[in-house]
């Protein structure tokens, strides 16, 4: 999974897709994940980071991460790495 190149992400968590004109806002954790995806971190690396920083467990991370990246993909913010 990678964030599309031309998608703009601000410090405040505002996301703008200039191709579709859509904009979104995300919370600080979402912003952290998007930044890691932008830096091409793997899912395992993201999991390790989130589990070490936040009080959550592996299955909750798995479910929430899946929901989040699906949302990014549906809204054309992210795409599968070919």
């Amino acid at each position, binding site marked *: 999974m990678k964030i599309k190149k*031309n998608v*703009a992400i601000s410090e405040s968590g505002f996301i*703008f897709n*200039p*191709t*579709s*004109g859509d904009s979104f806002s995300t919370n600080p954790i979402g912003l952290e994940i998007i930044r890691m995806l932008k830096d091409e971190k793997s899912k395992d690396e993201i999991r390790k980071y989130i589990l070490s920083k936040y009080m959550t467990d592996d299955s909750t991370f798995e479910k929430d991460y899946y929901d989040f990246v699906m949302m990014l993909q549906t809204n054309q913010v992210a795409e599968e790495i070919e």
Partner: protein
Amino acid sequence: MKQKITVAVSGLNNIDSPGPGIPVIRALKESKDFDIRIIGLSYETLEPGLYMHDLVDKSYQIPLPSAGIDSLLERIYYIHNQEKLDVIIPNFDAELANFMKIEPLLKSDLGICMFLPTQEQFDERHKANLYEFGEKHRVDVPYSKMMFSTAEIQSISKEFSYPMVVKGKFYDAYIAYNAEQVANYFNKISAKWGLPIIIQEYVFGSEVNVTALGDGQGNAISSVPMRKLFITDKGKAWAGISLDDEELVNIANRVISSSKWRGGMELEFIKTAENKYYLLEINPRFPAWVYLAAGCGQNQPEALVKLALGQNVEPYKVYDIGKMFIRYSFDMIVDLKEFEQISTIGEL
């Protein structure tokens, strides 16, 4: 030093379905090369632009398009006598045919310049001919067919699947989900705009539009794509945002190049989930959101004036992406004396 010119502009009905006149004037007022005196041309006494004296220097009523070219010519001669017009920018679809007919005469007799599409360009992009236009200029257009009577609904229902789009020849479009709705919309639209009615294949996706300017030689001087962010119940954009969509700009430029489009235009597309673009409509004049193009760094009305005056215009290369426009309504307080003046002597 700026060149002083006088430009007459129509389409001053800045209402919930706004005409392009006021946005065109705002863009012209921001011209870097011209100091422009604006003459408003109006059809109705309640067109808000008539009373916007910070934008419109003087206004004149002109005869409705149905009155024909002789009365239009007579009125333009009178206005020119008062104002010494350099350029006219008509902004209504319904008036373009008359202005196109008198364009050569106004140029040769009075030296008034316009920059309008040719009759052939105007006709071939007509809703009823758009499918053939798409085939000719290699752009996807939803399949469409003309309909002249509700008796044709049965055969249309076999050719198209529901939902389908029922459109008027000038304005109005509705999505019909069954034969009964097709009949209702047929009657509603034909009563207002006449026949034929156009039945168009329904394509699902998001609407994206391009405001553009062609130089008549096959060059796209400017193309700025926009997506509507807020749409009124009349289907008009109340807010929109400029897009970074190279493919859309390329399609628009290809249409301009292939058709050698002359003048301002708006191309309306549907972009599907598979990123395919279908051309829904071509409006043969600037859209009401053309001021966004100026806000993005491509002042299309100014460039049109230069082309009309025979000046060289280089195509714009870049525009700002992610610039938004948001409309608002505004109550002007108008003295009855002004309304009386435009109502009685047709000038303000």
